[in-house]
């Protein structure tokens, strides 16, 4: 090892008593020793590991939920064929013939576990609510990001985010007690509680999500692009329509997908206001039962580890897969946008 005078490390004209310790140390030790010395700070080590653990635990929990859910769901197929998830041939004693029944009727002499009515229910609620939230949410996001003054935004944005904080049972109660009857009068629907009322309720929770994400993605569009557009003589509206919105289109699509995922996952509002009759229908004014509401409604009285119990887990797994896929889609689309804008 070289032992050499490394006094040159000390800056000139500095009083040695006030110089930083590294200079004093190097005067005594030697440079190669100093440079290879590992610094160990216990506090830093602990914090680092704790943060890593926090991150890992959340992944672990998701993985465990995933495993548990699928383990239970797959038990269902021990006793029931996958075909039953679509429908079941049942002998109708009254008509004296075999009929193909696409019904969810778990408590019955011949239990029927068709997912079709539940999927219909979920989509009849989630789809209209996403369309409504997207139309107003994109408009509102554009307003917040491009038009509103800072002051307006400071008031409006937190107010909108409050919507997301309203407990869904409160929204469900409001839709049930206040909104459902006038809506029936307006649309002259057969059922007071129907998918459309549910969709409007779910809109209240999906809308703020879409607004926030749309606004974020519009604001992520570099200012330079807007300037370029204005400098070419574009008006504000032309700039929004031809530059800002197209540049943010991936973020806007992702916002809609995530809003859709949220709408699919919503349980309480749907359970309270859609009437819960599991029908295979395409009519939004029909009463429906969603995947989520079905679990919530039946989990309370299901017999532990029965066929019915596993069927509910299967419904949960289906829901999980759908939202999981939607989220991955949204993530891919957002990544594409970040690449496109070079952020």
């Amino acid at each position, binding site marked *: 090892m070289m032992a050499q005078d490394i006094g040159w490390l000390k800056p000139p004209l500095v009083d040695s008593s006030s110089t930083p310790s590294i200079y004093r140390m190097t005067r005594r030790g030697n440079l190669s020793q100093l440079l290879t010395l590992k610094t160990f700070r216990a506090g830093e080590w602990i914090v680092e590991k704790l943060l890593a653990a926090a991150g890992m635990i959340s992944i672990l929990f998701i993985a465990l939920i995933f495993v548990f859910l699928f383990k239970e769901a797959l038990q269902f197929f021990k006793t029931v064929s996958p075909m039953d998830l679509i429908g079941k041939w049942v002998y109708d004693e009254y008509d004296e013939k075999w009929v193909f029944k696409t019904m969810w009727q778990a408590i019955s002499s011949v239990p029927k576990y068709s997912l079709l009515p539940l999927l219909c229910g979920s989509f009849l609620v989630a789809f209209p609510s996403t369309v409504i939230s997207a139309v107003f949410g994109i408009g509102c996001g554009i307003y917040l990001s491009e038009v509103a003054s800072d002051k307006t935004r400071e008031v409006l944005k937190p107010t909108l985010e409050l919507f997301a904080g309203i407990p869904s049972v409160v929204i469900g109660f409001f839709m049930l007690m206040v909104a459902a009857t006038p809506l029936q009068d307006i649309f002259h629907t057969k059922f007071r509680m129907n998918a459309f009322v549910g969709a409007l309720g779910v809109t209240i929770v999906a809308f703020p999500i879409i607004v926030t994400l749309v606004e974020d993605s519009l604001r992520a569009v*570099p200012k*330079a*692009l807007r*300037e*370029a*557009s*204005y*400098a*070419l*003589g*574009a*008006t504000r509206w*032309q700039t929004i329509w*031809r*530059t800002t919105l*197209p*540049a943010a289109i991936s973020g806007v699509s992702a916002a809609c997908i995530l809003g859709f995922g949220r709408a699919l996952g919503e349980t309480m509002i749907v359970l309270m206001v859609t009437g819960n009759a599991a029908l295979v229908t395409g009519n939004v004014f029909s009463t429906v039962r969603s995947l989520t509401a079905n679990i919530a409604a039946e989990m309370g009285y299901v017999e532990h580890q029965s066929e019915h119990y596993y069927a509910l887990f299967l419904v949960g797994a289906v829901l999980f897969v759908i939202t999981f896929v939607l989220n991955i889609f949204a993530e891919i689309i957002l990544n594409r946008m970040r690449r*496109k*804008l*070079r952020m």
Partner: protein
Amino acid sequence: MNRPETTEKNLKTEHKSGVEMDEALVKIKTRALSVYYGATQALKQVDMDIKKQAVTALIGPSGCGKSTFLRVFNRMNDMIPDTRLEGKATIDGIDIYSPNINVVTLRRLVGMVFQKSNPFPKTIFDNVAYGPKLNGVTNRSQLEEIVERSLIQAAIWDEVKDRLHRSAMELSGGQQQRVCIARALAVSPEILLMDEPASALDPISTAKIEELIHDLKKEYTIVIVTHNMQQAARVSDYTGFFLLGELIEFDKTERIFEVPKDKRTEDYITGRFG
């Protein structure tokens, strides 16, 4: 377009800047122009005559107001809240800050190229066609013609003609900047403002842009902000030196660089500060 010849005889007006210029050759004129951002004064009483079909360079240290000055002419400063302007800025004798001026039309007349190349995340074709489309050109063949002409003018046609329908983001920085110049030219402006157009580019791309500026001045009035003294000397006919919002000296480029009148100009161009 009538282009009166400059002769010693018809140089009539004289300003404190020291430049004598025939009124008929003046494209842009400012008188006692001050710009404020809130309480800060970014420009102080600037008088300048900018000549038609010539290159005018604005030099000075960072924060001296040269970019603010440039952005006066297409009113891009309007977009910054709390901006206030005093004095007069005219183009062809028309006060561009008079209340009945249509800013959108003004900006179609005064093109701008920015410091950092900022192509839209669209195809090269759509980038250049953006301005004409705003002006209501929808005919495909007409658009193609404009795009080709602009790209040729911006000296990038040969490099991109085979990939007009690929994203402009795939191009190199220097190519992007020339596409941005083509985009600005596509609306047939009369004035081209360039805010340090080559500051982020390598020497070869810079040389190409400078050559381009030299060609463009035959048709356009060009105002260029630059940090690069050699660049100002190479490309411009007139140079204005700004310091702390003030126009210290404005003269023909060779005079600014050879016989500056003001000590501060001399200090700056010889690199003693800034």
